């Protein structure tokens, strides 16, 4: 075989490889930490963040508006402080409330933002004051059982 045959097949091989990489890059994956969109950072303090992790999505009405940048514990109040990176294109009022929600029963946890009615908007460095914590399943069950037991104490006692 002469050189042109090698060149042809190797060229085809490289094109196939580039096509496979393009397929993997465009059709299979997404660029989540491309960081092309400018963001502004606000913080929110929660009593309990459950299983929330850094880079978890922030959604408003189900639309992705940003990502969790970091989580740390405030050592004076013992509350979890979550840094939220929200895309510059989405502005929220100052009385926006943040809650930790779960997608599906076993799904990942994310932060849901519920816009308020205030005229002034959140800006970089602000703190969201209205927060509600993650639902912890064990607490929910124990609350339910205590309230059941409180409802009819006669049944809780076994009959003599």
């Amino acid at each position, binding site marked *: 075989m002469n050189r042109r045959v*090698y060149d042809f*097949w*190797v060229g085809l*091989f490289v094109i196939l490889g580039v096509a496979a*990489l393009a397929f*993997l*890059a465009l059709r*299979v*994956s*997404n660029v989540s930490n491309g960081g092309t969109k400018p963001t502004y950072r606000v913080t929110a303090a929660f009593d309990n963040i459950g299983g929330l992790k850094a880079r978890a999505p922030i959604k408003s009405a189900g639309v992705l508006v940003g990502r969790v940048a970091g989580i740390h514990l405030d050592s004076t109040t013992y509350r979890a402080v979550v840094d939220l990176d929200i895309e510059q294109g989405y502005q929220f009022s100052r009385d926006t409330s943040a809650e930790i929600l779960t997608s599906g029963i076993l799904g990942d946890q994310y932060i849901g933002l519920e816009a308020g009615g205030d005229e002034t908007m959140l800006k970089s460095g602000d703190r969201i004051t209205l927060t509600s914590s993650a639902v912890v399943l064990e607490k929910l069950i124990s609350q339910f059982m205590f309230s059941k037991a409180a409802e009819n104490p006669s049944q809780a006692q076994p009959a003599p």
Partner: protein
Amino acid sequence: MLDWLEKRVRRIGEPVVNTMEKLGFGFRFMMAVLWHSGTSFRRPGLVIREVFFTGVLSLVIILVSGLFVGMVLGLQGYDTLVRFGASEALGVLVSLSLLRELGPVVAGLLFASRAGSAITAEIGMMKATEQLAAMEMMAVNPVARVVAPRFWAGVLSMPILAALFSAMGILGGYVVGVVLIGVDAGTFWSQMQAQVDLFNDVGNGLVKSVVFGVAVSIIAVFEGFDAPPTAEGVSGATTRTVVTSSLVILGLDFILTAFMFRGI
């Protein structure tokens, strides 16, 4: 009594010394290959010819294996996921397992046995038939002319083959999951796109395949160059190439995985 002990100690010592010597020579050889790589870049025709033999001729086995691995992943993954009512996550399962692990590792193992063994046998036979010595007589450096182009061809081919393996596997998973079983095509692709990250998954898989390409290629050319110049020696070297590179791929894979996916 002392005789017996001495014999045992000597039996331990000999393989240790031999292994050390071989490792040292291997390292020196690797440096020599890198040092003499200039010829490969000045005359790309040499590398292109070797890419044809290592890469293009491995295409069929890589594409067919990728397709079947993906199809099996589709079947097995569906069977498990449907018990938890999560069959729409099939695309994520297939693509992540292919991109992160199976693509680079299985393509590397196939590459070692398909192309690595051929490289070793070729260089070993060149040595046994004294072609390498003849080259040296003509003031042509065999490392620059024979070894380095094969090494670089392997390094170039391996990522391409791994990417093709992953792409074919995902298509195989699509064929089984969507076309045969009937998972919704929209959720299959959209869940995959939502969960697979370009840098963390595709990029790290690519890094793995490059590392495996370097490892397999250097082992293959080294074993060929180091082979005893007999028929038996060449056959032994070919076997060692496949065994060593398979073990090295699996070991490196663990190390790379431990670095790349630390609970992300």
